[in-house]
């Protein structure tokens, strides 16, 4: 998975591009990669524009990533969620846990305006 | 099964009575083979209690011959049981079906 640092908004944020599917078969990959990304920055954005399918294991991993980011005094924001994935987030109430943005630029911008709590 | 042939408005009306099944279908087939395939025909099913797959086969074959000769085959007065067979096999899409012989013969 692609991960790069973005300093365009004046502070360090990391953007990870999620693949088209995260399910029981491959969610461990995200689970294992996340701590490495956290070492570089605690402000992370998941670019979900490619994400088409997410099952409950996949959702569980994303929620645990959020928890880890918060433990490190940072945040995990989600960007570019498609309609179907949004419906899943709404159904499982996961939508309330996350700060969700239409694209990565606005997610990164929110980090720098210091709005995360 | 009885077959009675009449004419109405220049259209051949074949009235059938009884059951059209594997036993009686050949009789119907033989009767129809001899008729002129170029003129319109109405088959009156008012007295037909039931039709099975072979009976359907004869009617489907006849409809095809009529079509090939640019003529038309119309069926009239199906009872519920016969209607159901046409419905469930979707054979209804091959015929013009009327609830009255007069209308079928183009009164």
């Amino acid at each position, binding site marked *: 998975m692609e991960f790069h640092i973005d300093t365009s908004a004046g502070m360090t944020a990391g953007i990870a591009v999620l693949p088209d599917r995260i399910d029981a078969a491959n969610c461990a990959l995200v689970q294992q990669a996340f701590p490495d990304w956290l070492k570089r920055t605690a402000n992370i954005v998941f670019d979900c524009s490619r994400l088409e399918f997410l099952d409950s294991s996949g959702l569980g991993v994303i929620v645990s990533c959020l928890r880890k980011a918060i433990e490190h005094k940072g945040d995990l924001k989600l960007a570019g969620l498609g309609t179907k994935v949004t419906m899943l987030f709404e159904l499982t109430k996961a939508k309330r846990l996350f700060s969700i943005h239409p694209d990565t630029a606005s997610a990164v911008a929110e980090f720098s305006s210091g709005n995360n709590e | 099964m009885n077959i009675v042939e009449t004419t109405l408005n220049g259209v051949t009306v074949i009235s059938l009575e009884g059951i059209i099944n594997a036993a009686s279908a050949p009789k119907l087939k033989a009767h129809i083979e001899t008729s002129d395939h170029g003129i319109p025909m109405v088959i009156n099913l008012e007295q037909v209690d039931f039709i099975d797959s072979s009976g359907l086969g004869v009617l489907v074959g006849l409809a*095809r011959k009529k079509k090939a000769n640019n003529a038309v085959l119309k069926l009239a007065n199906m009872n519920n049981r016969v209607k159901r*067979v046409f*419905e469930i*096999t979707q054979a209804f899409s091959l015929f013009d079906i009327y609830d009255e012989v007069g209308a079928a013969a183009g009164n």
Partner: protein
Amino acid sequence: MNSLFIVRETDHAWLREQFRGRHPLLVTLCNKPFIEFLIDFSILAGARAIRIVSDGPIAELEQYCGNGSRWGIEMSYAHMLPEDGRTRILEKNRRFCSSGRMMIVDGVLFIDNDKTANYRAWFAAIPAGEVIRGDTGSITITGEPLPEAVVPPRPRLGIPPVSSISHYFALSAETLRAGDRYILPGYSNEQDCFIGRNVVIQKGAEIRKPVMIGNNVQIMSGSVIGPGTIIGNNVIVDRESTVSESILMDNTFVGEQLEVERKIAEGNLLIGPESGASLLMEDPHLMGTIRQPAPGNRIVRYLVHAIAAAILIILLAIPFLVLRPLLALQKNWKTVAHSYPASTPGKTMVLKTAKISPDGLTGRIAIALALDRFALLFKVLEGSLLLIGHRPQSSSATAGVDRNPVAFNPAVFGYSEAEDWAQNDVDTMIIDHYYALHGSPMKDISLVLNALTNRKTV
């Protein structure tokens, strides 16, 4: 007065796709099928007999409506061809139309009306002609009005558009809130609250009006069935979930701690009506379909077919073991794998048969003994195929024509192979459907024997 409903196969095609194969008129709005709303209105308008005329299969409708005795009217059914115009349709139903005054409801799914208004007097007095037209349909009156009848003021009458899921959703919400204008199912002591039979609402669960709940529904503790919700029959809402402004269709399971807001849920399909997007939930803990148990006679048929298939396997095992290698040597055995529709809608299965050409004695014997289908006999034992039924078709000739509600039973042999008059795919379909309905397990075995003896002519 009589009423004629004209139902064209192509009308409301979107509904058929969205609600997976059910007849559009049997899709429920507020737990009542569209056809029943139309019947209610016709009766209000004074009809004593209703005929449904369609160019597509109406067995489902006929099964639901029967002969109309449930509503105290006579219902009958007729067929038309897709190219028939209004005049031809009336000719084909001349006997029905001969009673004088007729209300023709053409291509309409839903009529906005008010059950307290006097439609009978109005329809009896207005002159013949088109009464109202909507996007997809119209209502017309034919025949002479009562002589010297004064036409009363026009009662509430409309044909709202129902051409997309968002229209359906909006109409559903509006109809629930207009509960006293229609006859809606369910007991209601209070306005805006309709509850069916055998509804269990556990302690700690909350219901907020306006709401409609069907039959055999369980609402587990901690759940909130919020305002504007319609729940169908055989639904379970698990603990701590909230459902508001949504429709849960029949046979749906909603898991625990979920939030369903402004959605339509059908089995494991979650639909967002405003966006039109639908999401198939693969995790049964979240949402699922509640299955009805299979009827007992399917087990008898499976056993009979499996035993017959086992016997065929034993009889054909030696010829197969001898001829298969011989044919392979002669390069006359080509395994072909095709994917065909399975008996569960939406699923496909891959079947491997062999292509053998009738050259030489070995080829002809192999074909006569149906060795090209030997491998499929094992699928009968495992239950994924019947021994005789519908021959799997991947042809497109019947794909558009065949939407028969009789269950599709893919099999090793097709019923049409037992008869000798089928000349094309449409004929094959006709015979297959005939025996699917009129067959029995024992008759199936004699048809298998016919199919095997007919093979000599292949």
